[in-house]
C-alpha cells in the first residue's frame, strides 16, 4: 500500500541526487504532444513509457513534459527531444514500443534514431 509517508522517502532520495548535480543546464526535455489529436492517437501511453524507462534507468537529468497541437496531427503521437546544445529532434508516430530504443540510443548515447524522425518520412 502506498501512503503519504512514502513521499518523504522520495524527497530525501531526490534531495541527495540534486546535491550531487552541479547545474541543470544539461537537462534533456522530452516533450509529448498532448492535444486532442495526440491523446486520441495514443500520446498518454507513450508518455507513460518514457516515465517508466527514465525511472528504470535512473536518469536524473531527463524530464518529460507536454505541449499542445503542433499542427501535424496526422503524425501524432509526436515527441520532441530537446537536449542541451543540440538541435531539436522530432519523432513521429511514436508508440510505447519505440520508446525504449529512443531512450537507450538517443537520450543515453546521444545517437538520434533517424528512422523514427519526421525527416525519414518527409523525404
Amino acid at each position, binding site marked *: *500500500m*502506498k*501512503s*503519504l509517508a*512514502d*513521499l*518523504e522517502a*522520495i*524527497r530525501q*532520495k*531526490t*534531495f541527495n541526487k*540534486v546535491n550531487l548535480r552541479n547545474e541543470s543546464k544539461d537537462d534533456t526535455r522530452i516533450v509529448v504532444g*498532448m*492535444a*486532442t*489529436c495526440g*491523446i*486520441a492517437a495514443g500520446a*498518454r*501511453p507513450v*508518455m*507513460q513509457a518514457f*516515465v*517508466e524507462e*527514465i*525511472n528504470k534507468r535512473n536518469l536524473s537529468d531527463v*524530464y*518529460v*513534459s*507536454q505541449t*499542445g*497541437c503542433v499542427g501535424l496531427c496526422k503524425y501524432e503521437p509526436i515527441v520532441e527531444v530537446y537536449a542541451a546544445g543540440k538541435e531539436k529532434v522530432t519523432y513521429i508516430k511514436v508508440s510505447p514500443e519505440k520508446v525504449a530504443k529512443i531512450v537507450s540510443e538517443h537520450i543515453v548515447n546521444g545517437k538520434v534514431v533517424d528512422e523514427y524522425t519526421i525527416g525519414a518520412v518527409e523525404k
Partner: protein
Amino acid sequence: MKELSLNILDIAENSIAANASLVSICVTQDSHENLLSIVIADDGKGMDADFLKMVTDPFSTTRKTRKVGMGISLLKLIAEQSNGNLEIISEVGKGTTVKATFQYDHIDRPPLGSVEQTISVLVSCNLNVDFIYEHIFNDKRFKFDTREIKKILKETPMNNPDVILWVQEYIKEGIANITS
C-alpha cells in the same frame, strides 16, 4: 478515444489552456442510480455566453479555438451515445465546469480506463497548477489533492519519475479500495 480517462485528460487540458490554478476532477459511480458522472471544474478565465453556445459544435470553432471544439464535442457525443448528456457552466473570470453523465451499464459507454495515468500526466506536466481528484463509489470516497502532496515534497518537483509512479500507484490503490 477508447477510455473516458483520455477524455478527462483532454478536457482538463482546456482548463490548463484557460490558465486555471486549480482543477477539480470528480468521477462518481452510482450503482443504485445506474449512473456514471464526470465533473471537471476549473478556476480559469471562463467563457462568455456566445462562446459557450458554440463550444460543443466542432465545426463552428475558429482555428484558434479548434482544440476546445473537438474535445468537448467528442465527449458530448460519447455521453449522448451512452444515454447521458453533457452540461457546461461557465462564467468569465470565474471558471468553467464541464459535467458529463453516462448510463453506467450502457453498452456504448467506454470504460473509465487508467485515471491514474491521466492524473499523473496532468500533475507532472503542469507544475504550477493544483489538481484535486475525487472518486466516489456509492457512499465511499477517495480524494487526492496535489496541495497536500506538494507540502510534503517541498523542493522535489511533481515531475520526478519516482513521484509520478507513486501518484499512479496511490490513485490506483485508492480507487480499488473503494470499488472492490
